[in-house]
């Protein structure tokens, strides 16, 4: 099967810490992969390297057979774990912005998603609550027909109602020809989405496998396995 992501010996060092320590990871096309781990395990660092926001200290990272750069940014739809839209924007500006920069942006799908999320196009970005921000950002990211979606903690810090809406949006709008990487430490809420999971601890891969196979082999849910691996 063709690979969308190929990572070899990936290391990221900061001044006093090693965030990622020689990771090898390939992701096949059409898969939904959960990168699971507690805070500080290196999930966000890994994702930011894939999105082109961080540079690795060592190792190779290729997306769709290209080094991370302008091309990979055009095929990756990235949801950061923060409010990244410009403050002067209204929701309508944000839609036009995405439509202008990404050829794969589907305006009709974006309008449907915003309606589903109960968001008014005329609202200004700086007027939105945390939950509304999360819904808007996800609507923009899922409205692209990208080859790879990268979602960093898509349900962290939002109330249970918004959480359900966001999960529904991911399930209903995920394109099966694409691949998706989701990081989270809220495993129980998201484990049904994953085809495959990668447990990350202190910058190294502790466990990796098909979600269904891991459940069968261990007789446990992914959430229970997570608690076992991370000792919670």
């Amino acid at each position, binding site marked *: 099967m063709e690979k969308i992501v190929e990572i070899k010996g990936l290391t990221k060092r900061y*001044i006093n810490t090693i965030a990622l320590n020689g990771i090898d990871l390939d992701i096949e096309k059409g898969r939904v992969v959960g990168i699971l781990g507690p805070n500080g395990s290196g999930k966000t660092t890994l994702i930011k390297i894939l999105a*082109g926001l*961080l540079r690795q200290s060592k190792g190779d990272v290729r997306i769709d057979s290209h080094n991370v750069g302008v091309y990979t*940014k*055009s095929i*990756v739809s*990235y949801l950061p774990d923060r409010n990244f839209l*410009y403050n002067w924007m209204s929701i309508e500006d944000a839609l036009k912005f995405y439509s*202008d*920069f990404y050829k794969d942006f589907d305006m009709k799908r974006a309008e449907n998603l915003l309606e589903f999320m109960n968001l008014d196009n005329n609202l200004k970005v700086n007027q939105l609550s945390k939950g509304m921000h999360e819904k808007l950002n996800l609507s923009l990211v899922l409205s692209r027909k990208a080859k790879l979606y990268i979602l960093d903690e898509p349900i962290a810090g939002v109330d249970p109602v918004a959480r359900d809406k966001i999960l529904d949006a991911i399930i209903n709008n995920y394109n099966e020809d694409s691949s998706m990487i989701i990081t989270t430490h809220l495993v129980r809420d998201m484990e049904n989405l994953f085809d495959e999971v990668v447990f990350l601890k202190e910058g190294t891969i502790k466990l990796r496998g098909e979600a269904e196979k891991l459940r069968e082999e261990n007789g446990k849910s992914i959430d229970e396995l997570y608690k076992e691996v991370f000792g919670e």
Partner: protein
Amino acid sequence: MGKYIKYEIKGSYRFVLGVLALVLILMTGIYLKGFDRLGIIGGLAGLAIVIGYIAEIYYIMDSFRKELYEDRGYLTFTLPLSGKQIIASKLVVSTLWILVIGFVTMGYFLILFRKDINIGQLEIGLLEEFLPQMIYYGIYMLVLGINTLILIYLSMALGRVTIRNKKLGGLWFLIFIVLSTFVQIGYNYVYQTFPHYLNLSSFNLINIDNGAGLTISSGSIYMNLATAIYTILIGIVSFFTTSYLVENKIDI
């Protein structure tokens, strides 16, 4: 790149209009006080223009700082654009606003003080002689201004990658002072070593000892050719270095 320029303009035009409105109101207020004509009042109006420029340059600097240090960088640096396209777009928009503020405020200045200046009474020959020189002088100053902007961007980018991408807010300013000092030392060395000047009205080449980058003598403006080339080269090197750092070195 055109699209990014469009959104840079969209994101900054309100601030520029605000600055323009403030400067024009200040100039009108100063003019209406009217106890003296071109002397004190003109000077104060000139000061209002300078304040407008300072506000605009602060905004330009702060806008790039936010890209490097705040969350908006997550959007800008994941767009399918190269470092060169991002930096070039920012320079184009900054230059555009500097020109807009310059033309509007100077135009308004001339309208307010038209009776005192009375362009119609100026000798046509004198105007014909000086106008082209003033235009070249304006272009020269604009190039110097753009160079300073690129140097500020470079200092910010260097400030961000120094000490392994640690976010040290004021470091860039220190780097800017050091870089500017070196650039100025080089500039002085160049015009002293190559004292070949171009007369901006007759386009004759002459040698001037003890000149500067730009020298005014006997009603003519003389531009040192070597410093002009040096300035352009510094701008090009700074631009490509900043673009490289933004694309390959900065961690957001």
